[in-house]
């Protein structure tokens, strides 16, 4: 998982229907880049059957010391 480049960001924003100029795209790339890098160890490693709703199951499971 690599951080998107300003050029890629501009293209993604265009697809979303929101125009961003080159300066904004650069700013976004710098701003969101660390999140991509921080999540990189997890990205692409999750098991096939894992549902987002697993969170609610874990949250509601009784946990005590």
């Amino acid at each position: 998982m690599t951080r998107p480049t300003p050029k890629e960001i501009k293209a993604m924003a265009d697809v979303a229907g929101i125009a961003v100029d080159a300066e904004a795209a650069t700013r976004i790339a710098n701003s969101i880049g660390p999140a991509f890098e921080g999540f990189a160890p997890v990205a692409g490693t999750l098991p096939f059957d894992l549902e987002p709703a697993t969170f609610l199951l874990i949250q509601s499971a009784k946990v005590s010391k």
Partner: protein
Amino acid sequence: MSTEPALLSLTAVAQAIAQKRLSSREVTQSCLDRIAAWQPRLNAFMAIEAEAALAAADAADAALSKGKPRGPLHGVPLAHKDMYYDAGHVVTCGSNIRRDFVATTTSTALQRLKDAGTVRLGTLQMVEFAYGPTGHNSHYGAVHNPFALDHITGGSSSGSGSAVAARLTFAALGSDTGGSIRMPAHFCGVTGLKTTYGRISRAGAMPLSQSLDTVGPLARTSEDCALLIGLMAGTDPADPTAIAGPVPDYTAATRQSIEGLTIGVPTAFYVDDLDAEVARILDETLAVLKREGAHVVPVELPDQRQLTAACQLVLAVEAAAYHKRWLIERPADYGPQVLMRLQNGLAIPGVSYLEAMRWRGPALAAFNAAVADVDAVIAPVAPVPAPTIAESDVGNSPDAESVIQRLTRFTRPINYLGLPSLAIPAGFTSGGLPVGMQLIGRSFDEAMLLRIGAAFQRATDFHDRVPQ
């Protein structure tokens, strides 16, 4: 000792009104007097509704004289973050876009407090659309810290932190998506409860991120927070994420000792790169907890940096999705920093967002396993005390996101995991700035945090200090 009613705690003033030792009018007037004195310096209020508040106070007094109290907060004047819909009232959400928006419904949390008998004082300032941790607002101006006027309050519940600290309201609703209750609690020296995701209905509260948003109070004490969460928690047909089941007796929990409890101190991340005074105050806090009978043990947590990153991915995408229409139609009506942060969400692929959502369950399970032997974890809310307004006014500069990330480093992992966290005033720097610590608990175990917080506040007086 001052006899100014506004200086009482929420719990104490509610009892005083119920027992007719004070009238709602006396209490409301006391708050209004303080608001008149402090508002020019703090900018904590978005709207002050003095006449309506006094009329409501008179009605409350009349009802009480007829033996018809509405509830446990009968006649208590409160103001809240200006993002809770209140039918017929303007709710700006701290924005230019909603400057004239009049709500047609009332949020469940607010309605439950109204049903308990509260009087509306007005509304409190906030960061635009609750998207920022400093308290800056390019449309309505920065909110000022009552302990040091040139310093930030923290955000996004900036007015809530400032007004509660200055004793302008007895408590205030905030919201916490990435730290927005705990940051102002830390910077302003008040108690703030970020509730478990699903503990309090979000219906009628302005959304920022549906997977992370939580409703909670800022107040002077843990006891006050216990009273408020007890009134607001519980299932709600208008919000399917609000969990069913009984609501614990949180107030009873605050009366319990912490003798024999085990409190974990992280061995890494939350203790790294701390300001020297924050580190000192963490040590002093641990010493108090030990004196009160708790065991303090080291706890090794999973990599919190990954949680922070996952939180940022989820928040950015969900916020951008909520705002997409206005991003297309009215981009010029946003402040520069909020616009920049909303645009961040456009750069995150759907697959990355969903990976971050899918990882929440395993990440929470891993955290639960790591803290299996402790009753709660304690950590600083932020690595630093309140910076100045000038040095944190970074707008949409290249440094903006790194400044924001540094401030919210210790709060975001908790939002991603949906866990409860209680921020308590834990000390002051040599320069007089408040510093808070956060107690982090198991899902839906706010009672444990309030129990520890109340015991700490029985042993200390940081929460009693009034800014001059």
